[in-house]
């Protein structure tokens, strides 16, 4: 398998006032294989989300290199980066971040409709299918104020999938959800990954990390450890063991 993401010597510094600088990412090296399901853990302020946003080109790194499918994204101009996000990446946020004035299905369709020469009907059918897959097709025409957190996060996932991306980034996608919704969202993501889409997400939740196949551990901007596991399979019924093993590993690494 080839790498979809290759990061080398990645640094991110943020200036706070004249002589005050925050070094958030420190010489991070990271490869993500195509079709992999990766999670990033670590204490608050360790740089997990920053890693995600810098790999995806949403933010610009201060120094180092990030390649996406072999192309250096640091040299891309704003328009090229936008195109990359539109066609090859999907994002899921903790705050969900849907557009206020669009219905749920319009939120899903919107990234597909902004492309030129698009077949609107095909987009509609695809959006319908995604909503069906995530079990919220009945809410399609509702406003975003009319859904629960779990329902809206599923809309977020559908939106991330509408342009059939190569990778989905999730910034604590279950962070604001109850345990039932969390389990449902994770099984949807696992299903998507099974079909070949790479997934990388940031989480505080061991139960979430247990559904992924590689866990990265960050402390103070450094990638300090990683744990590789077998791909999660619900039928094996080994969630408990996977969680305990991650917990133990985390403690070993100073969590």
């Amino acid at each position, binding site marked *: 398998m080839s790498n979809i993401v290759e990061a080398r010597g990645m640094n991110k510094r943020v200036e706070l006032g004249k002589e005050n600088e925050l070094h958030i990412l420190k010489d991070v090296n990271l490869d993500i294989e195509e079709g992999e399901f990766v999670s990033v853990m670590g204490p608050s302020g360790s740089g997990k989300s920053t890693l995600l946003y810098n790999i995806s080109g*949403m933010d610009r790194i201060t120094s180092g290199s990030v390649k996406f499918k072999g192309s250096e994204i640091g040299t891309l101009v704003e328009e090229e980066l936008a195109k990359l996000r539109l066609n090859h990446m999907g994002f899921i946020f903790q*705050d969900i971040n849907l557009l206020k004035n669009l219905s749920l299905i319009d939120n899903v369709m919107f990234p597909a*409709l902004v492309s030129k020469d698009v077949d609107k009907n095909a987009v509609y059918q695809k959006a319908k299918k995604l909503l069906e897959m995530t079990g919220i097709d009945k809410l399609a025409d509702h406003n975003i104020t009319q859904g629960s957190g779990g329902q809206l996060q599923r809309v977020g996932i559908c939106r991330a999938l509408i342009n059939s991306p190569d990778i989905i980034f999730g910034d604590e996608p279950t962070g604001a959800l109850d345990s039932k919704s969390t389990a449902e969202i994770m099984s949807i993501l696992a299903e998507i990954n099974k079909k070949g889409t790479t997934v990388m997400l940031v989480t505080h939740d061991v139960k979430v990390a247990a559904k992924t196949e590689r866990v990265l551990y960050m402390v103070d901007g450094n990638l300090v450890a990683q744990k590789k596991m077998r791909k999660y399979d619900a039928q094996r019924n080994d969630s408990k063991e996977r969680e305990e093993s991650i917990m133990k590993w985390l403690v070993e690494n100073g969590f």
Partner: protein
Amino acid sequence: MFLKIVKNDFLRNKIVTMTVFVFITMAVILAASAINNIANLFQAMSDLQENAVPADITVMHAGEYDQAEIDQFTKRYRDHIAVQETMVLQNIDGSDIHFGQNQTMAGTIQDISFVVQNKKFDFILDLNNEKLDVKEGFVAVPIYFMEQHDLKIGDTITVKSGGYEKEFIISEYARDFEMNSSLTSSKRFVINQNDYDEMIELQAGELEYLIEFKLYENGDSATVQTAYIEAGLPANGPILEGKIFTMFNAMSDMAVAIIIIFISILLIVIASLCIRLTFLATIEEDIREIGVMKAIGISKKDIKKVYLNKYRVISVAAGIVGYLMSFAVVNLLNGNMRLYISSDLSGSLKYVLSLIAPLLVYFMIVMYCQHVLKRIDKISAVEALRSAITERGKSRKYSFPLLKNKFFNTNIYMGLRDVFKRFNLYRLLFFIFVVCTFIVILPLNIYNTMNSPEFSTYMGIGKSDMRIDLRRTDTIREDFKKLQEELKNDSDIEKYATYITSSYQVKNAEGSWDYINIETGDFSVFPLNYLEGRAPKGTGEISLSYANASKDGLNKKVGDEVTVRGGGEEQTLSVTGIYQDITNGGKTAKAHRSLGVNEEAVLWYIVSMDLAQGVDTRVKMDYYQDAYDSAQVNDIKEYTGQTLGNIIDQMSQIVIGGIAIAVIIAVLITALFLRMLLSKDMSQIAIMRSVGLTSKNIKHQYMAGTMMVLILGIIVGVLASNYLGEFLVSMAMSSMGAAKIELVNVAWQTWLLCPLALIVAVGFTISMCCKVTVEDDLSVVLRS
């Protein structure tokens, strides 16, 4: 403490604060200047009146005259009449007055006369409002002509009439209370008694008499006028009351002041809307802080104070700056007044009265702020902390789904639907664009109307190519006959009609007799648009001007009867129609030829004509002007242009000013609005960019929305100026005798040029302001 908050807030929102400051300052400057101007006008008018001592009643008469009869009459009515004086005018034709390099005053619609200063009252003044004392060989020229022909003190004019020829040096401007205004159709040149006597001796001009009466304070003007008419004393010209001169003198300055006050009110409204927008944006940004303040127990009153104080400080500062600046600005507005009414505008009343403007603006702004801040009362601490307030009422039915879009690119459609979805927000901009269009188009329409041949409708004359006026001269009757013969045989004339205006007595609402000028002739040749009814066609029919038919006049409707008396004979006529006329104080009438001509009191003859195709109007006009020395030959546009003179000039300045103000307001508010909108929508913009939209895509959304609002605003603005504007102008003009003005709308100006100017200015602003979307890392916004 509060000053510190104000200072911090100012630093945080520099552009917004400055914009609000500028608008309030501009509003104060304009309102204070307008009030200042009105105060000046009142003081200057009373100063002028005091020095000029105008007559209360002026009777114009040409022909036989006996001063002894007038003296007897004055004696008989000494309870009312304080002083009487008769001024003898020597009327000289414009073409006989030469100046510059072979130029003459031919073509003027004004009757020119040479006079000597009166001894008792109705004095003609110099620019210092002192009685003119003209030395031999010199002349004081009316301001109207000094301006019209760009004459300077020291220039010379030469009068050549019959065997008389003399050169005069201009020594003064003549400021003439009674005949200053271009709306008064006579102008008086003042010369020395010796020059005057020489002129009389050589019969340079036709004589006309101004029989003037100055009444006691409690003297009754109506009684004296009626008595004068009943006594059969000489009066074959109009009888004019003193107050009409006051009105003519004040009118153009008053009109300008009213328009400025109107613009100032608009600016106050705009400043209030800016404040509303600022509040909505800042309160939304600060909503969590409001929640925290409420949660820790700070009272609503104190929270409001934080927001209110800033605007109090801005209003006070803008008030002071605006008040002081208004004294500089007012000099730009009162040029006309300084020339025509009083050069010394140093009265102190204006300083006090102008203070009304900043005080009023301050209270209006503070009251408006308090009104907007009522929102804070409604926010509960919890609601504020959850920042749900501005997102209320969202469970309405979903409209404008993306799939319904069949015509536009998705980004354009997003921009357009946003306007409908958030019209509450965009309506401010919409309103501003409507107002801006209105202040460009309305003055433009008024200007075009005044300049159009159709304006003759409001002057009580039908539309024709050319008109010849014959006024009181000894040879008037012969000239008129000769002219008719000539016209009959002139193949260049397609059609013509003759009208004779003579003075009659008419029974007023109280049953006593007043004077009325009645024009007789065939009114079907050059039809006039009637407000109600039709022109008189048959025996016993008359039509009245709007002012004559109104309650202040004869109080008549179509179908009513009017009794007139001429040459000792009484006739009852029925009113067939009412038309608009702003000439001769608005009070005129037209009757069928069968009424006959009151030979003793013929005022003037008019011939209106249309020329055959291909005939050069100018050549024809020159021909008739040369052939009939005493006639005034004008084309209709020139006639209206000269009568409205100053008003048209001032209107053209207002048009230019209106365009400048509209563009400045539109650009400033658009920039301000977009800045607010973009900062309000920052998180939504970041979301769109996170899913793959470029800054350009997002810019197109905002451009589409704002441009649509602009175009809708322009359409509504143009319609409003056409319909509402027409209504407002008619209301304002009804006191002058025209109650139903139809504005002339030059399509390429209203629908193409002005909208294009606004679109270019606003489009450029939008394109500049939308440049910045999210500059920082996207995550900064997405995670905040």
